[in-house]
């Protein structure tokens, strides 16, 4: 005899892999991410009564996780990630190996984004939330999320353009101009 609605329980279990991926992108560490997910599950079950059945369960769970991370973050700043990067520790395959853009470069660039921009980009670009859902999760306006995602993409584009210019065959002068424009 289960204390919880089995359908709800199954839905929470189904959300765990996504919660982990989001937590890793926030915390920069697999271990801390799993602790965050655990704390999120404890909170979720303790407050299950406040969840309105039929509303967006994944968004509710993501909100709890993000709030936990934020309150912890205020206390101790994001630690320096593992030298190999958080995602590297979980990585089983190197996707798109023929790409001109090295996967390593991408992870480095993602790590350089301000946390607000990184979380917005991950929520919309990887977790599959709408701008509206992401705004609810981050407690901000839809326009703010859109602007964070745009700035994140632009910044990543700049960082990766610098990294990969030689791959695209641009000459040293153009490269210099791009690097200079990057610093404006």
């Amino acid at each position, binding site marked *: 005899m*289960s*204390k*919880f609605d089995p359908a709800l*329980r199954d839905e*929470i*279990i189904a959300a*765990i*892999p*996504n919660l*982990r*991926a989001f937590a*890793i*992108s926030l915390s920069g560490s697999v271990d801390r991410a*799993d602790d965050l*997910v*655990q704390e999120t*599950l*404890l909170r979720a*079950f303790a407050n299950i009564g406040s969840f309105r059945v039929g509303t967006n369960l994944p968004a509710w769970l993501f909100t709890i996780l993000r709030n936990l991370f934020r309150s912890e973050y205020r206390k101790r*700043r994001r630690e320096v990630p593992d030298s190999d990067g958080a*995602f590297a520790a*979980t*990585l*089983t*395959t190197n*996707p*798109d190996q023929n*790409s001109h*853009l090295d*996967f390593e470069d*991408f*992870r480095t660039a*993602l790590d350089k984004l*301000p946390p*607000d*921009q990184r979380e917005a*980009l*991950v929520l919309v*670009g*990887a*977790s599959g939330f709408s701008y509206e859902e992401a705004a609810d999760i981050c407690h901000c306006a839809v326009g703010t999320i859109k602007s964070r995602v*745009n*700035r994140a*993409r*632009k*910044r*990543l*584009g*700049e960082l*990766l*353009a610098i990294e*990969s210019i030689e791959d*695209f065959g*641009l000459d040293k002068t*153009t490269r210099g*101009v*791009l690097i200079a*424009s*990057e610093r*404006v």
Partner: protein
Amino acid sequence: MSGKKIMNDEQAEGKSVTAGALSTTQLPEGNGSTLGSDIQAKIGQHLRAMYDDVVRQGVPDRFMDLLSQLDKPATTSASRESDEEVDR
């Protein structure tokens, strides 16, 4: 470190329009938009590939164990390690 981060953020915010204009106007004609859209497509692919790699790992045992613990009748506190402590 945090001070620097905030500054970078503000700088990025302040120059966002300029930076976009620069990167399109200063790249060679024709190459600019291709390079930009190619990189934007790669960003999306890499982001999802990284994320999905974690998602594909499924639910680690520790979370299934935790849920079983939480779901046990009469176990009111998740911090209880032993069932014997709950004498019912």
